[in-house]
């Protein structure tokens, strides 16, 4: 089992994204290196558009995450509704 991770700049724009990730991925752990929020999760991590919209109450385009995205690891599977990271091929 290996971890995937994703890190965002620690600001108000990424707050709902991070909250949504932590709600949707029970095994995910957030750490706060200076200026960043890094989320590690075993094997798989998913970002769901719907969960973010539920938190903000406004339509969200998943491409907006790239404004504050710093780094990630894992194989990306992405469509309009979700972005997932995993090592499963």
């Amino acid at each position: 089992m290996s971890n995937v991770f994703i890190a965002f700049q620690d600001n108000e724009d990424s707050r709902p994204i991070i909250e949504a990730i932590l709600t949707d991925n029970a095994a995910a752990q957030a750490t706060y290196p200076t200026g960043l929020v890094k989320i590690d999760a075993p094997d798989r991590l998913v970002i769901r558009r719907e969960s973010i919209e539920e938190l903000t109450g406004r339509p969200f385009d998943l491409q907006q995450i790239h404004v504050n995205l710093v780094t990630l690891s894992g194989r990306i599977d992405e469509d309009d509704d979700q972005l997932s990271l995993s090592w499963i091929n």
Partner: protein
Amino acid sequence: MTVDLHTREIKPLRNTFSHTAKYVGNDKPASRYQEATLDTQPTDNFHYRPTWDPAHEIFDASRSAVKMADWNALRDPRQYYYATWTMARARQQDAIESNYEFVQSRGLVAKMSEAVRSKACEVLMPLRHVAWGGNMNNSSIAAYGYGTPFTAPAMFHALDHLGAAQFITRLGLALDESAILDAGKNDWLNAACWQPLRHYVEDTLVLQDPLELFVAQNLALDAQLYPLIYGNFVDDHIALRGGTAVSMLAAFMPEWHAESARWIDAVVKVAAAESDANRQLISGWVTAWADRAQTALTPVAELALGDAGVVALQEARDALDLRCEKAGLVA
């Protein structure tokens, strides 16, 4: 000589203020919303009682019949504080500006039929005054309510209402000459179909209990008015008859209504869950004010949609009742 650069991470001992940590813990950094909002209500050592209301302190929870052990429980799920709120609204303003540009550069208003254009003006112009009432009422909630988590979003909501009133004004100026605003005011003051709604708005202006005012304005009235006017009338009725331009220029209102409904529902849900007394009080207000709002909106619905108006209004009422049910109110 070589210089070795090291980065060293310094872990802060405290992640947030202790009054914030009291609510959210000290395990991780608190959000700006939490720091700007939780437990920031002034509570002690007031100088003297206001001469205009000697029965209460200047900030006094007893202005409302609703009792909360801790008013910091009434939080905003959107987590708006000044910066996030202004950023969200600035983005919406940009979107509306580009809608205006689109409509004006292509002359879409001139392509609407005269009947549709004048119908849109007839129904929408008097609503400037309803939105202004919403502005006054939410300012009053912000002034006399208790607890920053409840009063700060009420002030944002007051300014959002003002924004809605301004968008209606601008829409009127885009559709017609400035005399249309006077015509709208004249209808608001004199036309029979607007009088029950005007009576409702004017009665809410003098409501003293901030929570009751919150229910009467933001839940009972707006939850029926906005779906009826911006959903059924503008986005369906007018748009289907070639008035898509109106729908584009009024796009802020339905979007804002859907977004702010989450805050409004969260407030009544938490307040009602606090105690049975609160639940009964709030349910009573909702039923009384929603019934009255439905009656007041009936002639407006008929003006906007003809015979279909009553059905559309009943749909909006049913949706409101469903929201109340989900919030744990017996409506």
